[in-house]
C-alpha cells in the first residue's frame, strides 16, 4: 500500500549562522560548492530524489536561518519533520555548544509524538581547514553524541564534498524509518475507521 504512495521525507537542518547549512544542502543536492550563497532569511528548501534499497523517496530539505530570533518562526517550518540535522562548525566551539540548544528548541517547537526516539543526526562541518584551526575535537563530539542517546555523527566538508553522501544516506534512512513508524500509526487508526464504516453499511459481496 505504502509503496504506491509517494514517499516524502521532510528533513530540517539547524545550526548557528554561518556553519554551512546551505552549502551542505547544495553540495548534496546539486554537487557544487560556492562561497557565494546569500544568507538564508526565514527558510529555503531543496528537494532530491533518492533510491534507498529498492524504494524511491523524495527528500524535502529545509534550510533555516541560523540567527536565534528566527526561532519565533520555527513552528511553521518544523511541522511534520521526519528527521532533524544539527550542524556545527569544527572551527567554532560556540556553534558546537549550541547544538544541544538547537535540539531542545526543535523538540519544543516541532511537537513530535515520540521525543525520545525522534531521529537527529549531528554534522561537524568544515573539516577541510588546517588541523590547527579545528577547535572541536572528534572525541569531544563523539562523547557528546553518545550522551544524547548515540546520535549518528559525521565530520564533513561541504567545500570538498567529504562525507556528504554518507551523512545524507543515514539521514534519509532514519527519516524513512520515522516516516514509516508514523504511517503505521496512521494506517492503524484508518483501519479502525474503515471497519466501523463497513459494519454500518454491511458487506458489499
Amino acid at each position: 500500500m505504502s509503496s504506491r504512495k509517494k514517499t516524502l521525507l521532510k528533513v530540517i537542518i539547524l545550526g548557528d549562522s554561518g556553519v554551512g547549512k546551505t552549502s551542505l544542502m547544495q553540495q548534496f543536492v546539486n554537487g557544487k560548492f560556492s562561497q557565494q550563497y546569500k544568507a538564508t532569511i526565514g527558510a529555503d528548501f531543496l528537494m532530491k530524489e533518492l533510491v534507498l534499497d529498492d524504494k524511491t523517496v523524495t527528500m524535502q530539505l529545509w534550510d533555516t536561518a541560523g540567527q536565534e530570533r528566527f526561532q519565533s518562526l520555527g513552528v511553521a517550518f518544523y511541522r511534520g519533520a521526519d528527521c532533524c540535522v544539527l550542524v556545527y562548525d569544527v572551527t567554532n566551539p560556540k556553534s558546537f555548544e549550541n547544538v544541544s540548544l538547537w535540539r531542545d528548541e526543535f523538540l519544543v517547537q516541532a511537537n513530535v509524538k515520540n521525543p525520545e526516539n525522534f531521529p537527529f543526526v549531528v554534522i561537524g562541518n568544515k573539516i577541510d581547514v588546517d588541523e590547527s584551526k579545528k577547535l572541536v575535537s572528534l572525541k569531544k563530539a563523539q562523547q557528546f553524541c553518545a550522551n544524547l542517546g548515540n546520535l549518528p555523527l559525521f565530520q564533513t566538508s561541504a567545500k570538498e564534498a567529504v562525507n556528504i553522501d554518507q551523512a545524507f544516506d543515514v539521514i534519509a534512512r532514519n527519516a524513512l524509518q520515522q516516516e514509516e513508524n508514523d504511517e503505521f500509526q496512521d494506517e492503524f487508526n484508518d483501519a479502525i475507521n474503515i471497519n466501523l464504516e463497513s459494519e454500518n453499511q454491511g458487506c458489499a459481496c
Partner: protein
Amino acid sequence: MGLSSLPELLQLEKSLEEAHGLVSSTEQTSLLLSHFELISSQVSSPSCEVSADEIEKLLQSDGDFNLAQCCNKCHQKLFYNDECASKGELQADLQPCCYESVERYKHAVSLDVSFWWFLLNSFPCCVMTLPNYTRLMLTHGIPPALRSRIWGLFTLAGNAQGTTDNYMENLYHSLNKDVSPDISIIVKDVNRTFPEISMFAEYSTKTKFENILNAYSIFDSEMGYCQGLQFIVAPLLFHFKDDLKTFNALVKIFELNKLRPIYDHEMSGLHLWFFQFDKIFETEVPELYAHFKELNIDIQMFLAQWFLSFFSITIPFSFLIRMFDVLLLEGVKSTLFRVGITVLSKNTDLLKTIQDSELIYQHLLSENCWGIFQQDVDLFIDSVMSLPVNHYSSEHLSTLEDVFSKKGIEDPILERVKMRLYG
C-alpha cells in the same frame, strides 16, 4: 526654469494625460501623500539649490549606477555587470533598440530635467502640487545618476546636494568606536550579500558595509543586528556609496516606517504583518487563496523571507532598485505588500496547476517566481503601481490590526507576540 517651447508644452500635456491614466482616481495618490506627510513633518532645513544645468550634466554621465538599466523595448540588460557599467562598456550582443535606449538615457528630454529639478529643489512642493505626476515619474524610475540625491531627500539622509548633517556624523563615528556583539555574524553576512555584484566584493565597500551594520546594532542595542538588514542596506549603499549617508537613511527608514517590531527578538510585528497580508491576499486573489487553503499552504513559509529581506533573496537587482524608488516615497509596508500580492496574482495561473505544496513553496522561495515578468522591469513596476492603493492604506491596515488584536488567542506564539505588541 520654465517650459520654453511648444513641443515641451505638448509633451507635458501628454505626460499629464498618462499620469491620469495611471492614476484612475484621486485615491491612487493617497499612499504617496500619507507617507509623504510623515517625511515632511521631519524636514527641518530647506533644500539646497541645484541648477538645471547640473542635473542635465548628471543625466549624461556614466557610472556603475547604470547597472540596473535595461533596454526599454527588449529588456536586455545593457551592462554585463557593474564593473562594465562603471567603465561604460555595453554588452556585446545588443540590438538596435538597445542602442536607442542608451541614447535616450543619456539625452533626457528637457521636460524630465524640469521635473527632477523641481523635485530636487522644492521636494515638498513638488509632491503636494503634482502628486499624480510624481507618481508617474517614480513608476518610470528615477534616473540612475540622480538616484543618490533623490533617495537622500526621500529618506531625509541628505539634502539636494547630497550632504549629511553634523549631528549624524558625530553619532555615526562615536558608535563605530565600539564593536557590536553581533560582529561575527555581520562580517559573515556582508560577505554573502549580493556577492555577484563586483562593488560588494571590494574591500572598501565591505568595510563600509560592516561599519553601517555595526553602528546600527549599537544604535539600537535592544534590537541588535537582525539578519535581513543587510539586504536593505545593500541597495542604499550601492547608490549612496557613502556609509554615513546610508546609515542615516537606515535610521530614518526604520523610524518613519516603524520597522523595529518586525526585526526585534520576538519578531512580534512580523506576525501582525502575516495576518494583515493574509486578509488582503484573501480579498485580492481569492482563487489562489482558495487553492492554497485546499493544499494547506502556510503563507509564513515564504512571507518571512520576502518581508525580512525586502524580497532581496530572489528578486532581480534591477527590480529591487525600482521597487526602492517607490518604497522610499510611498512607504515600506504598503509597497512590500503590493509587491507580494503582485507576485502571487501574476503567478496564479501557474500555481493553480500545481497540486504539491512543496513545489509551490519552492516556486515562491526561488528566483522562479519572478520568471513571469521575463526580466521586464517596467511590466513589474506597472503591475505593482496599478493595484488599488486603498487596500494597502494605513487606515485599512489599522482596521486589520484591530481585528488581529481582538482575535482569540489560539497558540502560544501569538500569545507572546500580542503581549509584546499590546502589553
